[in-house]
């Protein structure tokens, strides 16, 4: 098989890059209209749903895992407490929207700084606590979140065990021709039937709109983290991850970079929580247990530690695998008795172990290996230095 060779900086490479971006946008766009609420795949009499609400949920996980990438993937501080900040963000924006009628996106003005500061506060102990101990403390943090929510003091704000219900929807503005686009897509010959039937209901329009907005928000978060990682502080945190001592010797402030990366990670966790609750419409303490934090780690590792696209895959995996596992009701050779129950946790746990053995870089490293067989990107040629004028 011949390889396509592309050199960075040439127009062919630019086209290749833009083709990728356009393809991604196209997938997002099609997903929004095709998988609105009826999308499902049937394999062996099992229906696997691909509803848009699940994809939006996956986006919320992606942003939270993106935060973990910053602190665990790039700075090397294993934090098992991301669920705490996810939950905090979810409850804060639920409270502001439900009780103070704030628009969803305005809540970020409070959620982001609040989670950032909380993350900084937790980054401070992390300066002294390293490695495994940090994992322990942050796991404890994640474990206490549900009981904090049940506290009598917080009851007026969190609505205790019943969960905080928010019935404020993100409605598309009048000028948005979602309905028209949908009708247009349905008229396309051959593929039109995959885009549903007839006009969009209000509920569907609202789902599509929420999905678009959250996808844009997530894209902004990814762009910001990508800029951060390739900038000076990004190089600094990677140096901290690879060798703390030599980073310190090279003049990198360890405490500053570690606490800041905790802050950034926690802020992203909060944003993820806001997306989650905006989609789901209810924040309940049972969703934000330490299990969620462990699932985020699963997403981080399964996607690929220290990669941004890994966060996308990780988010999809932890949003869909448990759902699909529980909707698997028929498997030849497996008694029905064993398909009932927390099969999703089983698959994720086993998948985590298997991946650690066969593909330690996560799914994304496998994808990259496959891609490298087809496309080869060469670095831009370094301009040869002009003939050195050696003074004699």
């Amino acid at each position, binding site marked *: 098989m011949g390889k396509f060779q592309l050199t960075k900086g040439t127009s062919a490479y630019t086209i290749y890059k833009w083709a990728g971006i356009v393809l991604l946008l196209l997938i997002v766009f099609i997903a929004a209209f095709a998988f609105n609420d009826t999308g499902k795949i049937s394999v062996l009499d099992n229906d696997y749903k691909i509803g848009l609400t699940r994809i939006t949920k996956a986006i919320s996980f992606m942003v939270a895992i993106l935060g973990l990438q910053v602190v665990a993937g790039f700075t090397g501080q*294993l934090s098992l407490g991301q669920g705490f900040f996810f939950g905090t963000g979810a409850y804060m924006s639920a409270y502001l929207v439900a009780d103070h009628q704030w628009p969803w996106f305005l809540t970020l003005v409070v959620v982001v700084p609040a989670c950032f500061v909380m993350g900084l506060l937790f980054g401070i*102990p992390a300066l*002294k*606590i390293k*490695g*495994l*101990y940090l*994992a*322990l*403390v942050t*796991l*404890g*943090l994640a*474990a*206490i979140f549900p*009981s*904090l929510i*049940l*506290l*009598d003091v917080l009851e007026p704000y969190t609505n205790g065990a019943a969960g905080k219900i928010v019935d404020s929807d993100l409605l598309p503005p009048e000028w948005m021709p979602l309905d028209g686009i949908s009708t247009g897509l349905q008229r396309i010959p051959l593929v039109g039937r995959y885009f549903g039937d007839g006009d969009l209901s209000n509920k569907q329009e609202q789902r599509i709109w929420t999905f678009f907005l959250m996808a844009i928000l997530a894209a902004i978060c990814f762009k910001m983290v990508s800029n951060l990682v390739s900038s000076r502080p990004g190089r600094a945190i990677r140096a901290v991850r690879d060798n703390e*001592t030599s980073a310190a010797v090279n003049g990198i402030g360890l405490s500053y970079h570690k606490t800041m990366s905790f802050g950034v990670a926690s802020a992203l966790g909060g944003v993820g929580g806001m997306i989650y609750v905006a989609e789901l419409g209810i924040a309940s303490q049972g969703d934000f*247990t*330490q*299990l969620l934090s*462990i699932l985020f*780690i*699963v997403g981080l*590792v399964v996607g690929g530690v220290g990669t941004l696209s890994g966060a996308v895959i990780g988010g999809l995996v932890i949003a869909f695998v448990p759902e699909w596992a529980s909707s698997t009701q028929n498997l030849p050779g497996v008694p029905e008795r*064993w398909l*009932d*129950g*927390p*099969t*999703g*946790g*089983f698959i*994720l*746990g*086993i*998948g*985590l*172990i298997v991946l*650690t*053995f066969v593909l*330690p870089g996560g799914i994304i490293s496998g994808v990259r290996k496959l891609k490298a067989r087809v496309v080869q990107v060469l670095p831009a040629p370094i301009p040869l230095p002009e003939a050195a004028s050696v003074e004699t």
Partner: protein
Amino acid sequence: MDLFLQRIFDGLSNGATYALLAMALVMIFKATTLINFAQGEFAMFGGFIVLVLATEQGIPMWGAVVLGMLISAVLAAVIERTLIRPFDPADHLPLVIITLGLFLAINAIAGIVWRFDPRAFPELFPSGKAFNIAGATLSWYTIFTLITILVVAGGLTLLLNKTKIGLAFRAVSSNLESSELAGIKVGPTLQFGWAIAAAVGTLGVAVFVASPFRQLEPQVMVTGLIFAVSAAALGGLDSLGGAILGGLAIGLVQSIAVPYLGVPTELSLLAAVVVLLLVLLFKPSGLFGTPQVERV
């Protein structure tokens, strides 16, 4: 006064379980400086094995406990051989990921096989109250849990100090490379540590749910692990005696400090996390642990 004493007794019986689980964590940490995040789930699984042996196979209770401990030890040894040993013991990240994967998988298996409804556990100790001291009742359960941890601690001490494999285990935990050079088979020795830890954890859960006020269900050790971890950290992560004192101390904090400070009961877990945080911040080696020297 009677209420105070009563709370001390309650705290001691809770603490005994944390102490047993903490000892299991310490056994693995001593050898590999690894924390097994799945330790609580190992123990829960062992507890279910004991339950099945006792109720479905009709084995007498203590026989079932011993058999359950043996089975979980064998399972842990198999897991160590297949999933843990292939990795470099000095590189913690993949190992932590593996134990987290085990946590999810074992919890799910227990949920699939035994469902999530709580099950009553057969009596392990005589029920009822033993003594009345100044108005507080000291139940047989409390007395026997305390005896159990003393027996386990004694047994482990004998095992580590008087047997050949114990000697090898101590050598490996003190210096892995030198002991390898001295001809000790490091792999099987660590495997021994994992097996013992699983057996002790199983006993811990059996004792925990043998209380007339508790039942066995797959989530039983999810928060129990946090208590055990802070108990182990308080005592010093590499000290068995420290684990006992740490466990009892955490149990007492939970039952005394929490009500007297007016902290709501939901936050007893927070107390454990705060203890863990404070210990790691100000005395990372714990009360009885060996301080770790970091070399560059």
